[in-house]
């Protein structure tokens, strides 16, 4: 288990770093005795897709609200698009809040137009953009419908479009995937990739690891308000010890002499009628699992099972914040 007090990677880049569109320096937010966000620092490079991951109640939404200056941090400071306050660059940011809601009585295209105009687009351009987006993302037939007639998922798509219609440099999406069916989830993934290809920076929060794994260049793992990890997806996976599961009737202890094998442990065999014993080997990052397999042949260890799987981001998440997540679940 990694000590959450000492983040594993990347201290924030200096403010002068031109490619950083957003940086947080020791940002905290307290409500009375409760600390929602505790001393978080991070830096987000321009054009990247950045994931905020963390269990429920970890402080993702609070962090996002502070970035947008909807609420003010209790301490620390935030630099966004070269300014010290999001209010100065409001029109260059797009935001989709966690809880989704729209004006029910408005027409879909007018709603997107309105939000784009609030971001400084002129009326005509906003209208054109609204229709363009609705056509591009499969909502053309609903453009003239009232928002209240849309299904929940469709409404959410409309809200995402209204958040990004003004083509902001920085897009912040709080839980954009929740409530979408698989087809629309991939439409949204496509939209996020389009924006990144377009040079826009996208930050989104989620607790579904697959999206982050597929999309993100960088991720921030946050639990109990504290940053527990900040880096690339591969770096996150690397925090998990690599394991090989073996099953054999022979003694496997000789394998422990191989360089890079850090631990050999007999574990319980879930298949009770099996003759062999199960072992778990922990191996270092440098060691190729093929070497273990070769050694088994050399040492005449007959295998009835040899399992090596690359860890997923999900494993890394559980590994990094597992305890916290469980605690939070009962809060």
């Amino acid at each position, binding site marked *: 288990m990694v000590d959450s007090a000492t983040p594993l990677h990347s201290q924030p880049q200096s403010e002068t770093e031109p490619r950083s569109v957003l940086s947080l320096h020791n940002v905290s937010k307290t409500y009375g005795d409760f600390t929602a966000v505790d001393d978080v620092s991070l830096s987000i490079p321009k054009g990247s897709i950045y994931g905020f991951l963390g269990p429920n109640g970890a402080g993702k939404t609070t962090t996002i609200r502070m970035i*947008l200056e909807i609420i003010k941090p209790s301490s620390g400071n935030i630099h966004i698009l070269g300014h010290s306050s999001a209010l100065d660059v409001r029109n260059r940011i797009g*935001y989709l809040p966690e809880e989704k*809601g729209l*004006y029910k*009585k*408005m027409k879909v295209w007018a709603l997107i137009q309105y939000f784009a105009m*609030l971001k400084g687009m002129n009326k005509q351009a906003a209208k054109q953009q609204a229709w363009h987006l609705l056509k591009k993302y499969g909502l053309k037939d609903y453009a003239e419908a009232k928002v209240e007639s849309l299904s929940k998922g469709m409404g959410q798509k409309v809200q995402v479009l209204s958040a990004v219609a003004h083509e902001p440099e920085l897009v912040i999406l709080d839980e954009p995937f929740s409530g979408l069916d698989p087809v629309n989830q991939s439409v949204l993934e496509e939209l996020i990739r389009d924006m990144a290809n377009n040079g826009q920076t996208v930050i989104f929060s989620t607790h579904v690891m697959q999206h982050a794994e597929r999309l993100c260049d960088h991720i921030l793992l946050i639990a109990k308000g504290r940053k527990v990890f900040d880096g690339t997806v591969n770096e996150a996976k690397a925090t998990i010890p690599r394991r090989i599961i073996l099953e054999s009737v022979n003694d496997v202890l000789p394998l422990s002499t191989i360089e890079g094998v850090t631990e050999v442990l007999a574990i319980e065999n879930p298949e009770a009628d099996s003759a062999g014993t199960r072992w778990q080997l922990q191996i270092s990052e440098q060691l190729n699992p093929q070497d273990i397999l070769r050694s088994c042949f050399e040492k005449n260890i007959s295998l009835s099972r040899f399992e090596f799987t690359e860890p997923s981001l999900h494993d890394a998440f559980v590994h990094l914040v597992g305890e916290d997540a469980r605690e939070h679940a009962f809060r």
Partner: protein
Amino acid sequence: MNMIRLIAWREYMENVKTKGFWAGILIFPIILAGMYFLQTTLSNSTPTRYYIFIDQSGEYGEAVETAIERDHQQRILGEFVNYLIENRADADLELTAAGAGSDAAAQLIEGADTDEVAALDQWLDSGGLDFALTMVRPTLREDIPPFEQPSRQFIAAELPQDIDREASPEEIAQALKPYLSGDKKILVDSVPSDLFALILIPANVNEDIMRPGVMPQANDRPAGIQYWARNLTDSRLPEAIISSINSEIRNREYIELGVDNGIVRNVQHTRMRMSQLDPTAAEGEEAVSVADTFRQLAPIGFVYLMFISLMQSVQYLLSNTIEEKSNRIIEVLLASVTAGELMMGKLLGIGLSGLTTIAVWLLSFFLFITLYQSSQTELIGQILEVILGSELIPWFVFYYFAGYALYSGVFLAIGSLCNTLKEAQALMMPMILIQVVPLAMMVFVVRDPDNVIVRAMSWFPLFTPYLMMNRAAADPPLVDVVGTTILLLLSIVFVLWLSGKVFRMGVLRTGQPPKLTELLRLMRQGN
């Protein structure tokens, strides 16, 4: 500023596009018009009332007949005066008690206004309707509809044949009770009809005449003339009868005393005229006209209009804020505009809706009085003209906006703290009650605008718009006007600043509205 305008425009357009908005606006004039028509129809459609009159004394038959005829003539006269006002060639509201027009119609109208009895006597003496019609014809417009006489309201019915006219009063009353209670119908021209009343004058009725200084004798029978009727509220018939019989009795007394009847009548109709004069008016124009009186009463209307419109506007404000809050749209908005811009945008947008409401009301009012012309509506129209042309309008505009800014600030803060209308209602209650106070005082304030209590209360900013509007027609002391205005403006700035703070903090809150102590704590923290 652009953002404020954009938000205001959306608030306004979304509001105006809903059916509920128009239903809310139009219900008011529709109900007023409906009430007006209903009242006119009801008073015109009172059914003919049949009564039975039995005079066993044989002395008052003529008097009662005269009384009922006079009542009918009175109605004709009233309708006729209305007809004159509607169809006169030149309508002129500046009617004063002193200087009415000199034509026949004007005289008739003035007479009916000042002394009904004398006017009626004159009407009857000069030959009633036929004469009046020929008299006033030259002063009426061409192409007017002919005058329609109102139908008689009280018609004497025959006593049912099985009842003896000479029986004792008790017996007659007993026999007619089933008819009076509606169980039996009397026949009028062979048509069964309801019997409205029985007027029974016993043979010894004169024993019951009351005179000053003489104690009435205790009796176990009903005293004097007996009026039997189930309907106790329509008192026109008994009143007409008793006043007619009283004047008959008095006439007889005069004759007994040797006084000429004609002299008495002339004396009775002798009267002094009175001119109401306004000391502040220019020389030669001091005479107080009907319009002047309305001008002084007008603040009541303005206060009422202000109350209704403000209540409607703040309701919209509240429900819109709560909608945005419970939908969490507010978060997107706050990522795009500042809380201050959002608040000002909403205030302006909803304020605009309020003005639309007033405009629609005035318009429908004008439409009504243009389409439906009668004496009353013509009068209303002229009053409206007087009021709209008066110096009260700038006052109203100022106090309307000031009151709106003040109250909407408070209501907006309430809305930002609540997630449902139900929660908001509990917090709204005290604010509504505060507005009821000046509303309840408005008639009193117009009568005594510089009362010490009224003056003191005017300094309380939440009352200022209402009370100062109320006093506006009476030229309140300068110190009151300037002082309360400064205080009001300062309070508006303060309330808007404070609600801005509450708003910023409240809009992102979820859960129950905070307790007062919690609210203060949150506001101290300043987020």
